[in-house]
């Protein structure tokens, strides 16, 4: 009973955050809503017994990734969203598609999936067990992800650096290209 209440509580927070993400027009509000979603998801994980994952979710996801998002939002000074005429297709095809897809899946899950009820803290994922798995069976993926992060760092640095900084560290390239593009952007 308590399990169900807690589940519903955290679930409500999740959904509220998700809906708010969609509803808000300023990206900073959406980001903050997403943080709420992640926090409540951490709660859900705890209910399922995944302690380590829950903590990591809070530390890494909500604490690092979302912070990165907020940094970027603030750096770019993103304002309220303008209402521009977007893609009709997205609205006409995409939204009904998503809704029907999810409804179908939901219906299948609720009435035709033979899933069992899980007790609270069903699979205990403490650090020891996680570490044992991570460094035994999943060692290779672990190492590969570290390489992946390295590449991501380098890529982010290169992509986000100012053009002059890149030009200084590379042989000189015709500088005229960039202003033209910027100008072209302005024309729109």
């Amino acid at each position, binding site marked *: 009973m308590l399990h169900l209440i807690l589940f519903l509580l955290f679930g409500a927070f999740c959904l509220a955050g998700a809906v708010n993400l969609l509803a808000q027009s300023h990206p900073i509000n959406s980001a903050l809503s997403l943080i709420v*979603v992640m926090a409540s998801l951490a709660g859900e994980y705890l209910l399922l017994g995944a302690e380590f994952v829950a903590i990591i979710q809070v530390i890494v996801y909500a604490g690092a990734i979302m912070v990165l*998002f907020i940094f970027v939002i603030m750096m770019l000074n993103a304002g309220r969203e303008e209402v521009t005429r977007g893609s009709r297709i997205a609205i006409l095809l995409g939204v009904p598609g998503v809704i029907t897809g999810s409804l179908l899946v939901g219906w299948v899950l609720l009435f035709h999936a033979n899933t069992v009820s899980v007790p609270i803290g069903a699979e205990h994922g403490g650090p020891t067990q996680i570490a044992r798995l991570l460094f035994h069976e999943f060692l290779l993926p672990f190492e590969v992800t570290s390489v992946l992060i390295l590449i991501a760092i380098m890529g982010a640095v290169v992509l986000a650096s100012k053009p002059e900084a890149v030009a200084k560290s590379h042989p000189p390239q015709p500088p005229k290209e960039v202003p033209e593009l910027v100008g072209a952007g302005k024309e729109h």
Partner: protein
Amino acid sequence: MVPLSYYLVLSGILFASGVLGFLIKRNIITIFLSIELMLNGVNLSFVAFAAQWHVLSGQIFVFFVMVVAAAEAAVGLAIIIAVYRTRETLNVDQVNLLKL
């Protein structure tokens, strides 16, 4: 005792919300946030199934998803910055030079 399907339904709703956000929103950063929402929904279902089958690999996989999400967020935001520098806009509808 909560049936597992409830968790899965929640996960599905989160995923659907993410897709909806992707479709509806015009600010590129908000779209990225929707992507993160999608990934979170998927993480939840991984953990739920790990609980059902009593296999810890599900939770391990969540780690990897998180790593990928982090890398993707980093690189994606860097791209957004680069695009913003040239196009002076965060509106995804205005970045359509690749049309036929």
